[in-house]
């Protein structure tokens, strides 16, 4: 690892990390307990002890260009065992949040998603776009007659075109952010070998890391994050189910002319509803635990709650749309559907700048670590006292 000399402390960076819920960072005395009790930090990239001193000293480049910040899955073991109550898990969370803004392309979108004052503007964009389409179609002033069919209100082709354009832009943003982080890691941590894609993907799909977080405790203290593996698994596959549902519906419409709404017994419809329930259930647990274990499990910030709420409201409005459609309440069905579309836009189009961006950055970090670590052991070297290399400077 290259270390720039002389050190150039960025104290503003430190202040911002402290403000992101990591106030207790300053009591860290660098004992390294956190790195040892961490169930997933590796022998050659132990964290979060070094990250604590990097932030304390305002070493922004080092702190933001290590894979560690995204390898951490926030199990909270470090915070549970920290002798100084410095809450390293909160610092790692703050670094992740900061890094999303730091690597954001364009930069202002990162700011927009991290400060409450921009929230109205962020909602205004999809509202205006959808309202413009509806106004142009004449559906803004008078709702379509007859049985409730959402495509009469907002033709699917408009949605498809709008989302394909917007999501392409979002994907480009996400890709640029991920690439910037990848390059930064390369500069600070050294290059990496090829491959590792399949391994990384398997690790993510099986939630291996979340599992290790729960299964390799250093002692017996509760971390208050024991639910994390199961809850994240549920929200992950729930969301994946919703993506598959939407894609299948798209294919159904365009390839087979199978128009919506589809009947309840249809496997895709069942998948959609089950997935939606899974997402809501998981989010309920995640939200509840954040509130119930506030002190022990660490603080949550604006960005954290924003993402949780947007995902929750997206799913809930989806269910509501279906309910009011079946209940044939025309005056309610179309407005609710409108709100649902706005939330979907918020969730998906702003994803590289919200907490949702973790799907890019964590994947990138895991891939980088996978390549850097291949060949180096996952367990610490076992030395004899004789084999301990003591730096001569200490003698």
């Amino acid at each position, binding site marked *: 690892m290259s270390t720039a000399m002389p050190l150039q402390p960025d104290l503003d960076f430190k202040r911002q990390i402290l403000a992101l819920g990591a106030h207790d960072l300053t009591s860290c005395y660098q004992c390294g307990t956190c*790195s040892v009790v961490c169930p997933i930090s590796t022998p050659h990239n*132990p964290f979060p002890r*070094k990250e604590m001193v990097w932030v304390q000293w305002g070493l922004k480049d080092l702190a933001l260009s290590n894979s560690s910040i995204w390898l951490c899955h926030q199990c909270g073991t470090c915070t549970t065992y920290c002798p100084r*109550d410095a809450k390293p898990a909160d610092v790692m969370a703050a670094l992740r949040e900061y890094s999303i803004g730091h690597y954001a392309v364009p930069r202002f979108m990162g700011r927009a998603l991290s400060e409450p004052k921009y929230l109205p503007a962020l909602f205004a964009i999809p509202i205006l776009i959808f309202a413009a389409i509806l106004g142009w179609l004449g559906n803004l002033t008078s709702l379509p007659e007859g049985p409730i069919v959402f495509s009469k209100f907002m033709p699917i082709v408009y949605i498809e075109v709008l989302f394909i354009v917007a999501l392409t832009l979002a994907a480009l943003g996400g890709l640029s952010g991920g690439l910037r982080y990848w390059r930064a890691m390369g500069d600070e941590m050294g290059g990496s070998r090829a491959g590792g894609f399949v391994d990384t993907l398997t690790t993510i799909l099986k939630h291996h890391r979340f599992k290790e977080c729960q299964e390799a405790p250093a002692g017996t203290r509760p971390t208050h994050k024991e639910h994390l593996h199961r809850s994240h698994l549920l929200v992950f596959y729930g969301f994946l189910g919703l993506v598959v549902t939407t894609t299948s519906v798209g294919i159904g419409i365009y390839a087979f002319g199978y128009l919506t709404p589809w009947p309840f017994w249809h496997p895709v419809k069942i998948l959609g509803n089950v997935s939606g329930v899974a997402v809501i259930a998981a989010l309920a647990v995640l939200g509840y635990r954040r509130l119930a274990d506030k002190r022990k499990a660490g603080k949550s910030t604006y960005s954290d709650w924003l993402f949780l709420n947007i995902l929750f409201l997206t799913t809930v409005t989806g269910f509501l749309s279906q309910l009011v459609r079946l209940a044939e309440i025309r005056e309610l069905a179309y407005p609710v559907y409108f709100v649902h579309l706005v939330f979907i836009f918020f969730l998906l189009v702003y994803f590289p700048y919200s907490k949702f961006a973790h799907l890019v950055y964590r994947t990138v970090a895991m891939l980088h670590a996978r390549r850097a670590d291949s060949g180096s052991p996952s367990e610490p070297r076992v030395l*004899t*006292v004789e084999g301990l290399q*003591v730096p001569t400077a200490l003698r």
Partner: protein
Amino acid sequence: MDPQESIAAVHRSILVVGGGIAGITAAVEAAEAGCDVVVVEKEAYLGGRVAQLHQYFPKLCPPYCGLEINFQRIRNNRRIRFYTMAEVETISGQPGNFDVTIRQRPRYVNDRCTACNDCVAVCPVDRPNAFNFGMDRTKAIYLPHALAFPMKYVIDDSACEPAACAKCVEVCRYDAIELQMAPKSFNLRVGAIIMATGWKPYDAAKIDNLGFGRYADVITNVMMERLAAPNGPTKGKIVRPSDGKPVKSVAFVQCAGQRDEAHLGYCSGICCLASLKQATYIRAQDPESRAVIFYIDLRTPGSYSLFSHKVQDDPHVSVVKGKVARILEDAATGELAVEAEHILSLEKIRVKVDLVVLASGMAASLDDGKPGAAIGFDKDHFLLPEETAPGIFAAGCARGPVDVATAAQDATAAALKALGAIRSRASS
């Protein structure tokens, strides 16, 4: 002066609570200055924690030497009276006139005991030896330790079964054993009080990630003192508790349960020196042996740093910056490995050792609220002079964790304060 305070009867004697190094130092100093002194000690012997040490740092000399001198001074000074197995129940009154209730547990052995050991030979039951932290056992009737003062046996009534057995009484040629001895309470009237209640080792089993109590070869630093002491459970041979094999390598875990919000929030200030000292115990026993000390900050204040340099000059003693936060046992071989981040080389490592010594710290002795409102404590149960009634003075580790030399100096200062308190009352 407040007329209430200037009552006629002013007691000129001093009560010293605790017969450890601070207590006996204060007692001897005050008595040799001409004052009557009563020492109350809860154990069956004087000397306290110091009696359990193998050697002092930095001179590496045996504490018994200094204790013997102090015991001699006590024995030769008619102004000092002491009660063992006794504790203070309540304190009332004011400077010059304290009324103190003492409760003394029965020893079941009187002053006629000659320490002939005949009773031990016939005693049928045994008990874990608290003096050696349970690493060996004694009979229910036992001598607290080889050089105990007073040199009298004692019966552990939680182990002895007097109704079924009186073999010791039968065999004792001096009528020294009284199984019917009962607890007794009595009051003392004194002019000033010195609290020298000392410390106790922090319960290392509470440090759940360091395996004490789970792994036999993880011991505490006070246990190491007993292992190294010639009158200890192994006659001074440092061996592994699990299999009795000689120890070739030791890891010292500094700040085990100290400077830790979940355990003792403070630094005991002596454990770094104790570990450095104990490294010399290992090195003295086997020229091939090795010791490694894992630390956060190696704290050896003042001239103690010379001792630190001296120990570290030994190439078989190494120090590693990084706290041990996990101890693993090889399921097949039972070998221990300590895990730490080697902070200076940024690598997480495990080091295989025969024995792990936890440098667990010094907790205050008085943590049950006794002896009442006259004494003020800080949040760690150490005495707070500003919240303690006038005429009561703290000495040594009752006030905070300190080394032996500081405790003795502090005790002398407390004796001077107590003498002053009495003199000022008597002359007015």
